[in-house]
C-alpha cells in the first residue's frame, strides 16, 4: 500500500528504475580494547595468547538485516533515535563500510555529502577548498571554475578577507559553513546528506536548504538523515525508520513520521 502512495508522489509518468538495492544488510563494528571484564595487562596478554577468533575485540552489531529498494527521483529520509544505525547505513550504501553479510547494489557511485575529514585546520580556507574538491574527486579545472562560487556561497569573505587565514582561526559556525559549501559544490548521482541542514546561522540555513533542493533536482536519488522532522517533511517523500539497527517502518513521509512521533512521545 505504501508503494502506491509513493508512485503518486514520484509521478506516475516516470519509469520505476531502482538506483539503490539493499539486500539483508548487516554491519558489524569491531572495537579494540573495549572488552568488558578485567582490563589489566595480564588479562590482555592472556587474551592475545589464547587461541580463538576475535581476541580482545568487542563487536557492535549496528545494522541488522535491512532490505529496501530506492528508485530514481525519490528523496528518502532516514529517522530513528541516536545510535539506531542511520549514519552507518548511509556509509554502507556509499560502500565506505564493508558489509558483514548481505549486499548493497547501486547505480553509479553514491557519495556522502561531507568533506570534513579531508580538510586540515592548519591550512588556509583557500587551500582547503582545493584540497576538499580534489578529495571529492573533482578535477583541478572544475575546482578553478567553481572556486569563486564556493567562497561566495559560504559567505566567509563577507566580513573581511578570511579565506586566506588558516581554518583554525574560524569560528565554529564559519568553519561549518565553509565545509558545507565545499561539500555541496559537486554534483552527485546518488546523494546522501547526514544532518547537514543544521549548520550555520538562520540565513545560511535557508541558503543551504535551497542548495539541497537544487542538488536533489540534479541527483537521481537523495538520502537525508536528520533529527529535524520538519526538514524531513519538507524534503522527503519516503521515510525509512530505523530502530536498533532494524528497519521498523518504510513508507510515505506522513505515515511514518506520525508513527515515529507517537513512539518518541511527542
Amino acid at each position, binding site marked *: 500500500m505504501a508503494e502506491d502512495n509513493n508512485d503518486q508522489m514520484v509521478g506516475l509518468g516516470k519509469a520505476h528504475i531502482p538506483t539503490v538495492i539493499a539486500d539483508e544488510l548487516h554491519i558489524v563494528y569491531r572495537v579494540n580494547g573495549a572488552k568488558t571484564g578485567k582490563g589489566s595487562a595480564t588479562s590482555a596478554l592472556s587474551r592475545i595468547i589464547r587461541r580463538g577468533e576475535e581476541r580482545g575485540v568487542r563487536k557492535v552489531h549496528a545494522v541488522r538485516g535491512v532490505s529496501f*529498494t530506492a528508485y530514481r527521483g525519490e528523496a528518502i529520509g532516514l529517522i530513528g533515535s541516536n545510535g539506531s544505525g542511520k549514519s552507518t547505513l548511509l556509509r554502507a550504501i556509499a560502500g565506505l563500510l564493508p558489509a558483514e553479510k548481505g549486499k548493497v547494489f547501486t547505480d553509479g557511485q553514491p557519495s556522502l555529502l561531507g568533506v570534513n575529514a579531508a580538510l586540515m585546520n*592548519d591550512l588556509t580556507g583557500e587551500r582547503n577548498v582545493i584540497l576538499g574538491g580534489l578529495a571529492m574527486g573533482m578535477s583541478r579545472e572544475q575546482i578553478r571554475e567553481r572556486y569563486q562560487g564556493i567562497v561566495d556561497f559560504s559567505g566567509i569573505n563577507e566580513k573581511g578577507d578570511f579565506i586566506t587565514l588558516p581554518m583554525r582561526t574560524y569560528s565554529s559556525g564559519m568553519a561549518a559553513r565553509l565545509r558545507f559549501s565545499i561539500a555541496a559544490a559537486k554534483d552527485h548521482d546518488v546523494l546522501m546528506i547526514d544532518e547537514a541542514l543544521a549548520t550555520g546561522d538562520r540565513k545560511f540555513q535557508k541558503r543551504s536548504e535551497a542548495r539541497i533542493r537544487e542538488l536533489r533536482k540534479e541527483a537521481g536519488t537523495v538520502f537525508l538523515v536528520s533529527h529535524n522532522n520538519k526538514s524531513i517533511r519538507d524534503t522527503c517523500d519516503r521515510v525509512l525508520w530505523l530502530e536498533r539497527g532494524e528497519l521498523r517502518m518504510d513508507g510515505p513521509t506522513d505515515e511514518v513520521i506520525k508513527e515515529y512521533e507517537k513512539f518518541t512521545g511527542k
Partner: protein
Amino acid sequence: MTAPPSPDDGLSPAELAAKYGLSVSGARPGLFEYVHQLWGRRHFILAFSQAKLTAQYSQAKLGQLWQVATPLLNALVYFLIFGLILKADRGMEREVYIPFLVTGVFVFTFTQSSVMAGVRAISGNLGLVRALHFPRASLPISFSLQQLQQLLFSMIVLFVVAVGFGSYPRLSWLLILPVLALQFLFNTGLALIMARLGSKTPDLAQLMPFVMRTWMYASGVMFSIPVMLKEHPAWIGDILQWNPAAIYMDLMRFALIDGYGSENLPPHVWLVAAGWALLVAAGGFVYFWKAEERYGRG
C-alpha cells in the same frame, strides 16, 4: 515487501540489480582498473602530501624554515655523539666522515618516516576513509610522497655540508636522481605493506620504532660496515651491506662524496638497488590492493 507493482515483482534483489545494471557498492576493482583510478587521483595525492607538509610547521613562529632547520639540528646531534664523543669514524678522514654520517642519517630517516607514516596511513585516517571515496592506496602513497618532499629540503642541508667538507658539485651528483627514485619506490612499497598491516593491527605503531632503530644501527648509518665488522665472518657484513637501507645510503654517499669511491660499494649494487625497489613496490601494491574493500572496517 518493498517490491513495486511492476513486471519486476517477484524478482530477488540480486536479480533486480542485475536487470538494471546495478553494481555491488564498495566492491574491489580489478588491478588495472585500480591503477587507472589511482592515476585519476594523482592531483589529490600530490595536494594532500603538500598540505600535510605545510600543516606540520604552520603554528611555529619560524614557519617553513623548520623544514631545513629540523634536519640540520638532527645532523648536528648525530655529529656530536658519533663524531666527537664516540669517534665512530674509524678508517675515514674527517672530510669524508661528516658528509658520510649526514647522508646516512637523512637517507635512513626517509625510509624510517615513510614506514612510520605508512603504519598510520589508514588507521590514523579512518575518518577520511569512512567519509569519501578514493582508492585507498592514495593515502600511503601520499604519505611517502610527503617524506620525499621532506627529504628534498634535507638535501639542501646535505649539499651545504658536502661542499663545506670539500666535495664540490660534479657529474656524479646526477646519480642522486636515480637513487632517490629507486628509494622512493622502495619506501612506497614498504608504506603500502605497513598500511595494510597497521589497519588490522594498530599496535604496530607502538612496535615499529624499535624495529626501525634496530634496522638503523644494523645498516651502518654512522659507521662503515666493512670496517666495523672486520673481525667477524664475512657473510654477516655481506648481509648487512645488501640490505636495502644500506644499499641506498651507500649509493647516495658514492654519488655525493669525493673521497667515497666505488671500492666501498658491494658488487652489482645498482642491480640490487633496482631489484629491491621493484620487488617491494610491486609486491606492496598488490598486497595493499588485495584488502581494498575492507579498509573502512574499524
